[in-house]
């Protein structure tokens, strides 16, 4: 009996030691998470002060909810904010609408049997992802500015008399931003699908072929259902990041002419905070962004629970 309890104690001790080791393994990541995700929340305090650099925060007066009221009690401020939200939703929405494109691209790429062609198409479409937006803009500038290649060629061939304003006009801003984004991201987005394509059981294809499925039949009945789980996970992630549709693309492309439709939330916060030094106001604004993001995530999670029967967080 005694012997038995001693061995049990030993087991508990060993178990504890294992848990302790496991904890140590995860500790660096917890620390990183704390440093990069929770510590910055301390910065939210700036939203409640009249922060004027170079003064320290302790030297600035506490103003409570002043900046929140400033944002939401003035009709024009609200209108400006809504305009920014409209742009954010439009561009994120367009992004989600076009999210099946990388999947289709991967499927079609997979159908190419000529190996070198397949490889080179894949490489060429992946490359733009590694070009920074600043360089993409400089390419866009040399192609589409009023003295860029397209206008120069068009004018010298007599197709147009005046240069066409591609970059400095507000025509189809959302669409052109979407196209630039697709050009840059399509090949990269397909990589995940190509990986999961390789994971589809080849026997399924053989069985389908025996059943008389053609090429499109195979795609429709086997490939697409095989890829859908991956698609849904990526879709969920992109919905959670709905408000964070990036800043760099819109920052490099923005000018006085397209500001009306290009200014997304991140760019607005940047312009207010770093561009104009209204740190308190832009902190308040980005707090609102966090709140809306959490609401979106919870909603998506609830939808996922209802439709797929499993939650994603």
């Amino acid at each position, binding site marked *: 009996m005694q012997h038995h309890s001693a061995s049990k104690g030993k087991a508990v001790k060993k178990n504890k030691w294992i848990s302790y080791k496991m904890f140590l393994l995860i500790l660096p990541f917890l620390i990183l998470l704390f440093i990069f995700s929770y510590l910055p929340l301390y910065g939210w305090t700036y939203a409640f002060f009249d922060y004027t650099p*170079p003064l320290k925060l302790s030297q600035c007066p506490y103003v409570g909810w002043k900046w929140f009221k400033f944002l939401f009690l003035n*009709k024009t401020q609200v209108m400006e904010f809504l305009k920014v939200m409209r742009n954010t939703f439009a561009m994120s929405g367009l992004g989600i609408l076009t999210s099946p494109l990388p999947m289709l691209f991967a499927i079609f790429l997979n159908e190419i049997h000529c190996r070198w062609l397949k490889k080179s198409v894949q490489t060429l479409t992946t490359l733009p992802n590694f070009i920074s937006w600043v360089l993409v803009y400089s390419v866009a500038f040399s192609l589409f*500015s009023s003295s860029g290649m397209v206008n120069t060629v068009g004018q010298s061939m007599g197709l147009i008399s005046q240069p066409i304003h591609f970059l400095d006009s507000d025509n189809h801003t959302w669409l052109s931003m979407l196209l630039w984004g697709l050009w840059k991201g399509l090949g990269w987005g397909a990589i995940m699908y190509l990986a999961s394509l390789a994971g589809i059981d080849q026997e399924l294809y053989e069985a389908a072929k025996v059943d008389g499925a053609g090429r499109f039949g195979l795609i429709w009945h086997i490939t697409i259902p095989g890829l859908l789980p991956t698609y849904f996970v990526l879709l969920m992630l992109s919905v959670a990041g709905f408000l964070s549709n990036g800043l760099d693309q819109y920052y490099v492309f923005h000018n006085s002419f397209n500001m009306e439709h290009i200014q997304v939330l991140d760019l607005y916060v940047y312009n*207010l905070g770093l561009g104009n030094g209204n740190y308190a106001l832009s902190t308040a604004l980005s707090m609102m962004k966090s709140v809306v993001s959490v609401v979106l995530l919870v909603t998506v999670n609830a939808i996922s629970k209802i439709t797929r029967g499993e939650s994603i967080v």
Partner: protein
Amino acid sequence: MKKFNKQILIGLLAALCTLSPLAGCKNSSAVSNPAAQTAASDSTGTSGSSKYKDTIQIDVFDTQANYQGVQSGWFGKIVKDKFNMRLNIIAPNVAGGGDNLFNTRSAAGNLGDIIMTGSENGRLLNTAKAGLLLDLTDKIKNYKNLSAYPKALEMVKSLVSDGKIYAIPSKVSKQSATTSSDCNDPTYGPYIRWDCYTAIGSPEINSMDDMLNVLKAMQQKFPKSDSGKKTYGFSFFKDWDGNIMNNAQMSNLYGYDLNGTRFLLVSSDGKSRQSVIDENSYYITSLKYMFKANQMGLVDPDSTTQNYDTMFAKYQDGQIFYSLWPWLGQGAYNTTEHKKAGKGFMFAPFKNLKIYSNGCSQSGNGYVIAVGSKAKDPDRILDFIDWLYSPEGVESSCTQTTGSCGPKGLTWEMKDGKAVLTDFGKKALSGAAIDVPSKWGTGTWKDGISALNYTAVLTTDTDPNTNLPYNYTMWDSYLADNNTMLDTSWQKKMGAKTTMEYLKKNNMLSIAPGNSYIPEASGTEVDTICNQCKAIIVQDSWKMVFAKNQSEFDSLLKHMQTTVKGLGYDKVIASDQKIADNLQAAREAASK
């Protein structure tokens, strides 16, 4: 298991390697740069090294510098020889991002060893309050050049809460407040390609509308630039847009300016004021003219996307006929060869012109120089600053934009009791890229110019060494040589030797008396509203200039007016009115 450990180790090392550049962000101002050190040791300065044993490198946080890095060339050598010191210039203009560099450096508690920054809107007050500046009150009396401007010291004392001296204003002067601080040319003014203007028969210009017609005629007569590109009357750029679209500057031609105010154009005496968004303000009038010019095909279509450098290259190529400022068109196109051939930008007035010009101020300007609270060797730094205010310092250091004559013996010499440019000076100051004599160090004259862009003393002031202005372009010996084909053609038509002479003769100057008023802080709320409004104003202004037709122009104006009013524009105007009242009082007091 062992192999696994090895992999982890390698992974961790790789992570460390990627992090290590971050560790390099530490302040590296000490004499740790081996390249700079050898560069310093070849200059065999003795006077500096004897008084100051060790060579130091100081950080100069300079909000008006357009160069970042260690000052090199002849000016660097003078500073090294005199003070055994190298200047490492930190330039927000180069770094970009507006005030961000100032804010992050001040949050870190050390702006630099020398700080050059504005003092308006509570800036000096707050910088001092945050403990970033060294108190100079007790030391300053030991420096004879700095204490020579008591009014300037009074002014900076009044800007901080404890009444101490933390900074010294720039552009101090001993001239009267109603004397223009400009040299031969005003800061603003209509400058056009004189050769093209005479080629179309020099038609009379009575108004801005006439100017547009003249430019159109010039464009028709000269459709191609020197390199065969299409010519235009105007070319704009957005780099300097602030509260308003910078290029819409007609108000300055009629004696109004935004001087410490955000959206209120104030006349030079301070009495008349215009809100920029008013339909009849000079600002909206400018936009109307720019719109009209664009309708006439006079505006370069690249204006919307180009930057200053691209635009400057167009002026150099002779692609643009009108220059908003003398130094733009003349700086780019009036080379010695062009002037000899009669080509170049010259002043072309129209009736009712009243060009705004700042008067001289004994208390100087709101842009100040200060010593950082954590400065190493503050006494040596103060010796250097005192030298910047000495006649020799002004001669040498203000050569970048304000045209002082350079160091004696290099660019100028005394001949029969009069200051004249040397041959080297004549060549170097007209823009030729020639190396300085080896005694003065290495590199060209232009590369060695002080990159501080700091005008300690107004260069129209009299240099006690020569009894002439510091600015060599005002010397008789220089003006006597001012007789190229371009100059004589202009002088013959206008009946004056210089633009300034013409403006004074025809009573076309509107001088704002120099004074000691620096606008105080107006509060974060007004600042925030102002920042939001200016974004709308600038944005809509550009759209208005390039509007398709009059009705689009009008609806954009309406949009601008209603949006900024909705954002609280009137609060900014109320604050501006207060500033303008103070400004008016200060100007009246100064001109008495």
